[in-house]
């Protein structure tokens, strides 16, 4: 498959202070470790439900989410848990969610990466239907513009989801109203088993931006700083009143669509090439070592911290109770108050 991905031209320039560069490394390595461990637990039959691995796409997820400010909102999909972690989800509550426990963000009402935290990290609670959150991001972005608030909405979806009508509706609308929104497409080259050429007939998704009257760029999703810089530019343009943008970030889905899928339809040499040459976590780690931003010892320490956090999260999840069966009907209506105790929720409705 021809992917016109390219290395960042400015690979020598450091776009961020060292501390923030290190933080990016933390999120990349956390995502990778979490993904690998959760898959192992799933295979051992110790994790219920489904898993949707984001491995190989960490550069995209961390790069775009890291460009957001706390007041900006994120509208992700099943594949984008790493972006949500970068935006500020608490690992403990994430893990409680995977195990169907009361301390999960959905309080056991949903599982795995169908997660979100509107009142904290400001992320939309993922729904499966693709790309169902794109039109919703239009509404959030409109609200920021209407109130004159300096916030931006960012929505992510996969390459396959761009085939769906609402993707096009959302882009068109956002440009007509010049809304502060950034549209991200995580092009991991496969939509379940369907390759790019069976989803769209144009060479790139980015070029579609022209048809909607907005800027569009295609970036190398395996190089986090390239993704970050493109996202930062789009986010700040939106914040300044410059309207929407489209970012296509290209990488490869290293694992199957979900935990059960061996993905034999992905050519072996393509996968091997990406794993050997385009590993977003290793590439960035080597970059920071070369720049002297971190030492080998720093990296080992970071890894140890991540493993500790994972263990703590796992213990927290397993110690968290299952929801009470008698509470099954609670939380449908605002008035029963079931959700009022959610951190950051502050009782009542935002609007009311």
């Amino acid at each position: 498959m021809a992917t016109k991905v390219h290395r960042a031209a400015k690979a020598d320039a450091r776009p961020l202070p060292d501390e923030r560069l290190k933080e990016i490394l933390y999120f990349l390595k956390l995502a990778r470790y979490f993904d690998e461990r959760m898959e192992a637990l799933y295979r051992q039959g110790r994790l219920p439900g489904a898993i949707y691995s984001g491995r190989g796409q960490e550069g995209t997820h961390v790069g775009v989410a890291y460009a957001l400010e706390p007041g900006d909102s994120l509208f992700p999909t099943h594949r984008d848990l790493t972006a949500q972690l970068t935006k500020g989800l608490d690992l403990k509550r994430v893990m409680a969610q995977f195990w169907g426990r009361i301390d999960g963000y959905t309080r056991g009402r949903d599982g795995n990466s169908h997660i979100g935290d509107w009142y904290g990290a400001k992320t939309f609670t993922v729904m499966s239907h693709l790309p169902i959150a794109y039109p919703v991001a239009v509404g959030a972005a409109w609200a920021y513009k209407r109130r004159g608030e300096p916030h931006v909405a960012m929505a992510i979806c996969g390459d396959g989801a761009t085939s769906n009508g609402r993707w096009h509706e959302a882009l068109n609308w956002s440009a007509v109203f010049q809304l502060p929104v950034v549209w991200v497409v995580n092009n991991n080259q496969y939509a379940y088993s369907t390759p790019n050429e069976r989803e769209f007939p144009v060479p790139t998704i980015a070029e579609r931006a022209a048809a909607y009257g907005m800027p569009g760029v295609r970036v190398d999703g395996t190089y986090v700083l390239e993704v970050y810089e493109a996202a930062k530019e789009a986010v700040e343009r939106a914040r300044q009143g410059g309207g929407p943008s489209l970012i296509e970030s290209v990488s490869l889905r290293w694992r199957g669509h979900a935990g059960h899928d061996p993905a034999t339809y992905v050519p072996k040499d393509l996968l091997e090439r990406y794993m050997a040459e385009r590993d977003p976590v290793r590439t960035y780690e080597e970059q920071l070592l070369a720049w002297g931003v971190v030492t080998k010892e720093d990296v080992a320490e970071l890894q140890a911290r991540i493993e500790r956090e994972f263990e703590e999260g796992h213990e927290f999840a397993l110690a968290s109770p299952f929801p009470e069966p008698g509470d099954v009907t609670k939380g449908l209506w605002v008035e029963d108050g079931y959700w009022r105790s959610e951190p950051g929720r502050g009782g009542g409705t935002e609007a009311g």
Partner: protein
Amino acid sequence: MTTATVEAGAAGHGAEPRGKRTEDGQATYLVAIAEALWEEMERDDRVYLLGEDIGVYGGAFKVTEGFLDRFGPDRVIDTPIAEETIVGMAVGSAMEGFRPVAEFQYADFMSSGFDEITTVLARYHYRSGVPLPVVLRGPSGGGVRASSFHSINPEPWFAHAGGIKVICPAFPADAKGLLKSAIRDDNPVMFLEHKWIYRRIKEPVPDDPDALEPISVARVRREGRDVSVITYGAMVHKALEAAEELERAGISAEVVDLRTVYPLDEETVLRSIEKTSRALVVSESYRFVGIGAEVAATIAEKAFEHLDAPVARLSPPNLPVPFSPTLEDAFLPQVADIRTAIERLSAW
């Protein structure tokens, strides 16, 4: 409450190959459905399949595994993720004489094609006289820890649309015979395959490629004297289990499997009530404006003089299907709930 069991990896996706019939001719529901599709494709060149990941991958649950090799890409079409156009394509090609069978990866995603289904497919023939022999099929239902967006029972939405027949089979042989009838039917048919049944239930299935099961004919799955349990889909299996248990306690429950939920076979239902005088309606679709509500209303309206007790209903509340095992188990009618409801009715 930390004792609930969780089924790891049970989100309902089909990891393994579809499998085959056993030596003695038994087939799973999954295999029976594949056989129906295969035989109808062999029989009629106008029949073709379309859907997401159905060709190269063989479908999310492997229903169409091997079909691409046999029938080629003109008859087994991998589509973009575009449900409105999947339905539109089916309708347009049906107008031109094809007989499309569209797969939805999960019945949940039928909502993404809602307008083409409820506006075009359901209403076209009544205003134009142009037949639309379209089958929409997909895995529905819960009980597999797959949560809100992979567990829906959408049959009330589409039964309500008016111009679409809605089939929810519970057994492999019924699934095969009814799907074949659906494909040969000149009207739009929605065929909902309960994913909990796919690999769990196995039975002998006819070989004869012309063995059909009639649409809109219910079937008494178990004879009984005291109470009629009217149900369909996965709940048939739970009802049968409850009836089995109660037999030992001296209560005789009859189980009626609707098989088609729209248009409804009222006659079989009413005949059963005449015999038992007590009705329990169990559905996995929502209670409010659900299939069970309609069946209960029909019984109340047309069999009132035969009833010895008020019609009872068991259905989930109108809520998103929750993920956590404690919540999903509380949400779905369980064997014990059905048993208790039958006992209560039989005490009248």
